[in-house]
């Protein structure tokens, strides 16, 4: 036990004296958590909180232009740029501004849009009211009539999600105007049509008094929605936490930072081998297992420190920068178990890498790149469910994906130890597999010639 403690103490001393290693282990994940959370917090707010400016040019100046303008004003995610009159900006300047990226969207209602819109609406409604169905020949309807269109410029650097959000908002607004205008026309046309039909049917019996019997439709509609969409977070238990960038990013980048210990861990193994230290140790009364266990325990302690530090940042620093406070959920024990398992998985990988790689350069390059690849596959950058099928299938094999899913169970879904176990188990198996693989390699090389 004293030998193991000596190995742990030595590893920790060495780690805390290696400034570059400390930067990799602590500062990098901290910087990632702060930067990515703040960036994504803003992106998530785009969906409902922070308003994005839109350059709106109403060259129509009539019903459609006004109502589209109203819809943008009412939108929770869009805000009109100052240049809305058409005097400050024209189509060309709007397009240039968006192309440059100085503004993300421009919405232009061309002159005459309302006139064309109304004409098509009238034709559409007229064609739908038949007097002698089904014998009557359908009217021409809107066929052949030019369709007015709303021009929508968007910055090509924007993501598909953001672009389609704004496009959907505009389509929804147009649909609303269309329904409203069509119903207005319908309400006006139907009594006239009914009167005509009644006159024709009654012939000489028709009197102006009969007009009162024909029902009138109200032109103004009640704006209250008939049916609403109720959004509710699907979580275990009674928790009502709303997912936010802090809840999603803090655990994700903590995990990413943890897996970066593979670089210093593999480096320490390689340095000991290259400096002759390993041979010296193997000629001493200490087993290779004790040496390796000393490293694993030290790096697991480091991972625990990373967790505490990053959680503290999520709980105390990030809120000062305007984000919600990190909620660690109702199962700190689950967080501890997940962290321990992820730390072991990362340590196992580091040991395998440090055993197989011949030089520090090899280990650091391969280690860092493989962790980034595993993170990308694990859904750190793009959610797994929107990846192509083949990538989704591959992502199942990423240890970072298991860790992230386990953390999200606790941080976002309100789960605990039980619900995170399906992801914790593969992490532990990964640790076993990598250490056994390293051990097999070491055994073949004859480095275990110890007690």
């Amino acid at each position, binding site marked *: 036990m004293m030998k193991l403690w000596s190995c742990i103490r030595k590893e920790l*001393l060495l780690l805390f*004296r290696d400034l570059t290693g400390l930067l990799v282990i602590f500062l990098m994940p901290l910087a990632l958590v702060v930067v990515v959370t703040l960036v994504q917090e803003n992106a998530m707010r785009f969906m409902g909180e922070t308003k994005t400016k839109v350059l709106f040019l109403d060259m129509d100046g009539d019903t459609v232009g006004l109502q589209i303008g109203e819809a943008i004003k009412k939108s929770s995610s869009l805000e009109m740029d100052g240049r809305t009159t058409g005097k400050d900006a024209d189509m060309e300047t709007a397009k240039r501004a968006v192309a440059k990226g100085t503004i993300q969207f421009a919405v232009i209602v061309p002159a005459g849009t309302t006139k064309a819109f109304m004409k098509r609406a009238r034709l559409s409604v007229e064609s739908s009211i038949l007097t002698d169905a089904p014998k009557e020949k359908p009217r021409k309807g809107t066929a052949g009539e030019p369709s007015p269109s709303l021009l929508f410029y968007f910055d090509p650097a924007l993501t598909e999600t953001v672009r389609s959000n704004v496009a959907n908002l505009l389509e929804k607004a147009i649909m609303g105007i269309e329904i409203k205008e069509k119903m207005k026309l319908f309400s006006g046309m139907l009594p006239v049509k009914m009167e005509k039909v009644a006159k024709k049917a009654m012939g000489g019996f028709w009197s102006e008094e009969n007009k009162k019997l024909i029902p009138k439709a109200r032109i103004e509609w009640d704006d209250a929605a008939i049916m609403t969409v109720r959004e509710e977070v699907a979580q275990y238990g009674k928790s009502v936490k709303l997912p936010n960038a802090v809840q999603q990013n803090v655990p994700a980048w903590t995990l990413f930072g943890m897996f970066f210990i593979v670089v210093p861990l593999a480096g320490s193994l390689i340095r000991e081998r290259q*400096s*002759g230290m390993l041979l*010296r140790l193997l*000629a*001493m*009364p200490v087993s290779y297992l004790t040496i390796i266990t000393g490293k694993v325990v030290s790096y697991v302690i480091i991972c625990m420190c990373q967790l505490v530090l990053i959680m503290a940042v999520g709980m105390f620093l990030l809120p000062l920068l305007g984000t919600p406070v990190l909620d660690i959920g109702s199962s700190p024990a689950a967080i501890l178990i997940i962290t321990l398992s992820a730390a072991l998985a990362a340590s196992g990988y580091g040991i395998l890498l440090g055993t197989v790689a011949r030089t520090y350069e090899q280990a650091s390059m391969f280690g860092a790149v493989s962790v980034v690849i595993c993170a990308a596959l694990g859904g750190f950058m793009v959610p797994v469910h929107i990846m192509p099928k083949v990538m989704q299938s591959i992502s199942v094999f990423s240890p970072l994906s298991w860790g992230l899913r386990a953390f999200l169970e606790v941080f976002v879904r309100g789960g605990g130890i039980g619900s995170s176990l399906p992801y914790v188990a593969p992490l532990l198996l990964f640790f076993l597999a990598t250490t056994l693989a390293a051990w097999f390699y070491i055994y073949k090389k004859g480095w275990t*010639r110890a007690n």
Partner: protein
Amino acid sequence: MNSAAPSQEMILSAQDLVKFYPGSDEPALNGLTLSIGEGEVFGLLGPNGAGKTTAISIMNTLLKSTSGNVTICGMDVAKHPGEVKRLIGYVPQDIALYPDLSARENLRFFGRIHGLKGPELKKRIDEAAAFVGLEGSLDQRLYTFSGGMKRRANLAAGLLHRPKVLFLDEPTVGIDPQSRNLILERLSSLKDRTAMVYTTHYMGEAEILCSCVAIMDSGRIIAEGAPDDLIRRTPACKNLEELFIALTGKELRD
């Protein structure tokens, strides 16, 4: 061959050691036999590839021999490596110390691995540091040390636990004459309590320090005896270096 005098207690004995590395048809060791008595400094000399490091690695438990056996203080090295490791010390050719730790921290780590602790460990660290002339630099980090200081610290780490047999693999490579002189002087003073297996390419060192030398080539001993005896037996050679060249040839060994 038995170099130890009949009155001496045998500390290390190697019998007919043969070692084939995987994939090689040529043996790295081809029937090496030697014995070292108490208080003896045994010089293992030879050109590169002669089998010195292989022999030391088998004797200090790092390698398994293909055949033959080694006993240290009567214990079979292959059968009881754990016990043997408590009796031996190893000073590798590389500076096998942690540069980011101080000399004291390095020695403390190695001492604890040997089961030393508390006041005894502190006493041994101070003793070992004083022995190699590093008592004033114990709290300096290794990377700040000169080459000679590092070599001396490397030696101190092998002496902390007072081994019965000390394996020294070229312990004076690349250092200034003062540090070399100190190391040789201190090693000489250890003779009465520690047997040593010493490899070096500096024949002068072997002449001064070793009570017995074995010149190896192609995995076998080609000459063995006290340095003075060996030189006397070959009248054409004035010193060990000339004898070494005469026995192993001038051809380069890379």
